[in-house]
């Protein structure tokens, strides 16, 4: 039962009916793929090919195909890993945390955001495997029963924690996402005409009947999974940050890392969600579901987490100075003024300075500005991980071992290749899966409440001190909602 507030702005505009929602969302799935989608998929597949070629070179010849050296043992690989994992975080935050906090506006973006999470985690998971010298032995990191005698995984190692964190994260996200998809799959199944689609979607929908009992269980499971996922939002990146924080490398050995990494992850995740949403809403004509309000809200979250990250950057410098440890101090001086100063400068500009533009209302509600900003933040967050990993390693304790890192073509190929992988998956998702959670969006629609209060922009319990210029618009009216503030 929906309560419609006369004060709150509607979350779906355009006077959509339930049927409109079904139509709008299923249209993408049922229609022939359009040329823009095909072109995008072709590009994505090309980069997937780049990825596969780079992976082949890595697996066939060895990690030597990358630009790493004896001093810098991780660079783009782990940078990309952390970057992709971080991107995934927004999806979980949107689907789980916002669900728990009853933020209804999440309904129209959570599906795509969760899909993004899963694909980002898939991309991320490539790196811990690929960066191994002997990836065919990767299963040794699992505490499996084995025939090698007493050999077992090392529970002291943060990498092992990573294994658990990422695998838990992936499986919970996948289940959560899939559960949410089931009613929508059933909708598509019921509308499907082609024999393949009928079979496929009926299998995917797991014989969903839409009974009240099923809905009740659906709600319960969603809540439970949301509850399970919520700590994951914090724990996954906390553990990823421990890869660094528990080491002895100056610049890594920092207790501030867990909150700093989580904030950074949400920051970059929201940036990626924005990037994807801004494209999707245009390509699939979903402007009524992903409204400017959504964009503004996400912009705000981005700005807040960006500021948290900025504070963390400054705190690191303060602690380095305050600790009076020469290696720590040098690590940060070198980070900002050493040979990789440009990476640090890019990071500061992209992550700390540019998000502050969101304070301006115009920027917050501007689609082009938001899009540029989201890209900038994604670049900045990539640089943040590069700065942490490479500038800390390349000049650590013994000056004799100081070295520079420069990526090889294979490094670059794998990175852009994972984007190919990501977009291939995302485009397939966008074509064959309902990109918006129809079932949940319908719950936030004010359709059929003609007899109830309508949105007027004014609180009926308080006498208006002055009249607004824009009168309330009946929800069912076939007019577009004009933003009034």
């Amino acid at each position, binding site marked *: 039962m929906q309560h419609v507030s006369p004060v709150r702005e509607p979350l779906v505009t355009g006077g959509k009916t339930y049927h409109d929602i079904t139509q709008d969302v299923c249209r993408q799935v049922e229609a022939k793929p359009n040329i823009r989608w095909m072109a995008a998929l072709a590009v994505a597949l090309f980069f997937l090919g780049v990825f596969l070629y780079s992976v082949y070179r890595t697996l066939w010849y060895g990690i030597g195909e990358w630009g790493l050296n*004896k001093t810098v043992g991780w660079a783009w690989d782990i940078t990309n890993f952390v970057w992709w994992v971080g991107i995934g975080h927004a999806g979980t935050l949107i689907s789980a945390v916002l669900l728990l906090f009853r933020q209804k506006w999440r309904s129209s973006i959570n599906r795509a955001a969760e899909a993004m999470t899963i694909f980002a985690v898939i991309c991320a998971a490539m790196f811990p495997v690929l960066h191994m010298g*002997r990836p065919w032995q990767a299963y040794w990191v699992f505490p499996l029963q084995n025939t090698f005698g007493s050999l077992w995984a090392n529970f002291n190692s943060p990498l092992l924690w990573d294994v658990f964190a990422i695998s838990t994260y992936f499986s919970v996200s996948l289940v959560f996402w899939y559960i949410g998809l089931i009613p929508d799959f059933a909708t598509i199944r019921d509308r499907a005409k082609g024999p393949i689609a009928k079979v496929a979607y009926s299998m995917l929908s797991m014989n969903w009947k839409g009974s009240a009992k099923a809905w009740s269980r659906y709600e319960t499971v969603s809540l439970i999974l949301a509850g399970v996922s919520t700590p994951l939002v914090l724990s996954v990146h906390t553990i990823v940050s421990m890869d660094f924080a528990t080491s002895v490398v100056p610049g890594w050995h920092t207790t501030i890392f867990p909150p700093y990494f989580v904030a950074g992850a949400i920051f970059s995740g929201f940036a990626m969600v924005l990037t994807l949403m801004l494209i999707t809403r245009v390509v699939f004509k979903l402007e009524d579901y992903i409204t400017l309000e959504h964009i503004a809200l996400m912009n705000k979250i981005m700005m807040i987490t960006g500021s948290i990250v900025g504070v963390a950057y400054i705190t690191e410098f303060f602690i380095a100075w305050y600790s009076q440890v020469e290696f720590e101090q040098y690590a940060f001086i070198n980070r900002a003024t050493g040979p990789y100063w440009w990476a640090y400068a890019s990071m500061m500009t992209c992550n700390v300075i540019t998000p502050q533009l969101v304070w301006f209302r115009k920027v917050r509600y501007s689609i082009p500005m938001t899009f540029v900003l989201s890209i900038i933040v994604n670049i900045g967050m990539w640089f943040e991980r590069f700065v942490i990993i490479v500038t800390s390693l390349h000049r650590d304790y013994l000056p004799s071992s100081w070295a520079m890192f420069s990526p090889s073509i294979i490094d670059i190929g794998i990175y852009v290749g994972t984007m190919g992988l990501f977009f291939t998956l995302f485009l397939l998702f966008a074509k064959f899966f309902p990109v918006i959670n129809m079932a949940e969006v319908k719950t936030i629609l004010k359709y059929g409440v003609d007899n109830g209060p309508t949105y007027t922009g004014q609180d009926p319990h308080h006498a208006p001190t002055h009249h607004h210029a824009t009168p309330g618009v009946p929800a069912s009216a076939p007019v577009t909602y004009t933003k009034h503030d």
Partner: protein
Amino acid sequence: MQESPKYWKGIEELESSPEFVKNALTEFADFLPVKETYGSSDAAVAPRRDFLKLMGFGIAAATLASCETPVRKAIPYLNKPQEVDPGIANFYASTYFTGQDYNSVLVKTRDGRPIKLEGNPESPLTRGGLSARAQASVLSLYDGARLQHFTIDRKKADKNRVDSEIRTKLAQAGRIAIVSPTIISPSTKKVIAEFASRYPNTEHVQYDVISASGLLQANGGVLPSYNFSQANVIVSLGADFLGTWLSPVEFAKQYATTRKVSSDKKTMSRHYQFETTMSLTGANADTRVPVKPSEMGAVTLALYNAVVGGGSGSYKNATLTKAANELKANRGRSLVVSGSNDANVQALVAAINQALGNVGTTVDLANPSLVRQGNDARMTQLVNDIKNKSVGAVIFYNANPVYDHPMGADIASALPGLPLTISLNDRLDETGSLCKYAAPDHHYLESWNDYEPKRGYLSLAQPAISPLFATRQAQESLLTWAGNNTSYYDYLRAQWSGVLGASGFQAAWDKAVHDGVVMGTASPATAPTTAVDAGSAAAALSAPTKSGEVELVLYEKVGIGNGSEANNPWLQELPDPVSKATWGNYVCVPYDMAKANDWEQGDVLKVTAANGKSVELPLLIQPGQAKGTVAIAVGYGRKQTGKVGDGVGANVLPLATMVGNSIVYATTAKLDKTGANETIAQTQTHHTIMDRKAVVQEATLAKYIENPKEVTEYEKVATPDGLEAPARVSLWQDYEYKNHHWGMAVDLNSCIGCGSCVIGCQAENNVAVVGKQEVINRREMHWMRIDRYYSSDHHRDEFETEGKLATYAAMENPAENPKVIFQPLMCQHCNHAPCETVCPVLATTHSSEGLNQMTYNRCVGTRYCANNCPYKVRRFNWFSYYTNEKFENVNGHMFTDLGRMVLNPDVTVRARGVMEKCSLCVQRIQLGKLEAKKQKRRPKDGEIVSACAQSCPTEAIVFGDMRDPESRISKLLRREDGERAFHVLDQINVQPNITYLTKIRNVENGNEFVI
């Protein structure tokens, strides 16, 4: 029409019965006895079950066949030699001398294959030390580029045909010349003499690539023996006696005894070095003064004047005066040496030593050294004779003058015109390939021979493996051509019966072969009493070049030396101790010259010498290089030495000048930037210590004498109970070492940075060679490295005045003439190892004896351990170095069956994708423990020695059991505790098992002598 002959396969074919003709046309018989076999009722089709059965069998058979492990031939001994036990190493004494440095060695053989060389502790000269070059020579044995048979015109030829043709031609040859580097083998000389008596027109010409003609000339034809251990003050005028000059291992041994300090012996020698480019010796000097090569004569004269008294020269320098005063204060306990090839300079040096009363103490003319006998004048004469064709036959005996003599081009053009040219060289090198005949010599590890490096000091070489190729020992070739058919072994024994005495010869001979060395065989000769005419020598000194012209000096590098072993990849990849560069030579340029001309490191310069010859090489900014000078190493630019050494660097020997029949390794040069750029493969690209006292520490002798407890700064951490040593604070449970606790101590005062340990480790532990590009990529695999730090003019105390950023930036630049410190670094075997905690699969763990162990086949290669290693000693197998064709040239010894013979069977060759690092020679520890266990006792101290400690010529590395209170290391650590002993990066509390001892410099005050 003639009928062609008919062949038939069987009687059926001959008969050609219709049945046969029918069947002959079908490949397979149409009848398969399936039905009979399986009793099927339907004969027309093979039943489904049968088909499945057959298919199942077929698949299983094919699978099994493809699964078969390839059979490796392991042929057991039919008759096992008595002394050879599979898996047990045998050691044979031998001697390494190839015209460069002399080393008495022990050859470690496993199953009949020499796999490693160790210093022979019996030798009174090298006393268990071994140079990097000698260490690496075992790899040259298995060099596939060696000539594997006799040749005529570079084509394989029968040995007897070669012999008969040569004998015929020798008889008609007229003048015959045998060209060789210095030969210190008395028996070989006897062979040559016998050859000369058969062909009376024979002349034996010896020449040295880096000639000591001037030194010989100035000392009445002998090379003085120097004894650095007796010297309180050492002044070296351009002699790199620790790295390349005459007998570096012997000198390093002696030098180190004067440099070791302890609270019981607070004295050490003072070492002044005047030189042009920063040599290994200069890097170790207490005070180093850069001088131009043209000034060297003036410096010597000024020193002569200051010591002996007399007129004042053109050169004035406060340090020189101070050195002279100290020399005078230490009469008979001082030593002046010079690396010059100018007889006049050497005459002055001899005069200085004489005036100081050093002859008889530090300079021994009675038992002269024999390691350099080359005569520039005779060689020059021979080159001219070859040019004029006044020589009928030339035999090159391990000599390659086409490459390594300044007039090599003349020889190359004249050789094909000579009636008879013979090469005894081990390969068809630049000279050998121009010779008509090649009768390749054995490698020394396949040969019998004797050596006399110093009068009265004899040593033997014995074969440690039967000849790998169809080669013949050069001495035997010469004997054969001289008509003597005795084997060289018999010849040698006959020769030695004169030395050891005929009675009881066999026992004495056995002992000599066993020990490898024999002493006191010659009656002491009377020292030649050549009066040095210092006056005329001074007058004859060449005038200094007018300033303004850039001077070029040629020098030898510790690894490659004169280039005769350029095909040895271990040596090519051994970082130069000073520049840390591998794989090639370069132009060492002082910083201010590079800056003035706007050159940067890696810019390719065209260097044109005064004689018009030029080379193009990349530039390396060398701190300490004298102003207005550049330096280039010899030994590179080989063209016909093999896949490893060909085309690495450029040959600069043609740039040397001939002045009055002697070679001068300095000239003036013109430098032009070509615009090209070539990265120099350095293993260290940051050169200053950035004032990190936690890494390496040094102090002055004055401070040490004052209070040994104050020379080392110990970091303290704040605790609730006040400041404490970091090790006192720990969250960890400490390991308990119940049996052994292995550890190592490295005395930074003794370490001269020579790199012998690096090669020793490489040979012992099968460390891969990765080649130039991978060194540039910073992926060299050395488990043991020697960090070299230059001092900077800027220090932390400028933070307040200059600001931190500016000071840090300034600290990155080495001083113009920096002090140098070497720090050997291997795995520190931390008790709280950061690598151990982070490995997800427990591939690196701690042993119950304190070792940090690496389990290669458990490693998945996350490299987290390497990232978390504060010492950066872990090495990752980026590629499969033994199968990836990219490494076939440089790491060839892991590719071929021949090369693989050098691998140590006790140590795994690491697969791609795994981490590796120093194991503290765990295989040696295990062997030592097993040997002790067999004898039901505990291992004795000194019985187990790591490869690096074994090869160290200065005994800077002490290895042992720290749990044994009486072991050398325990005593040393007890003695130095709180004085010089420190752990690198003590403050991060990883508690290494490797301890370093603070370096002490014999200078009164920090910067007093920096020019």
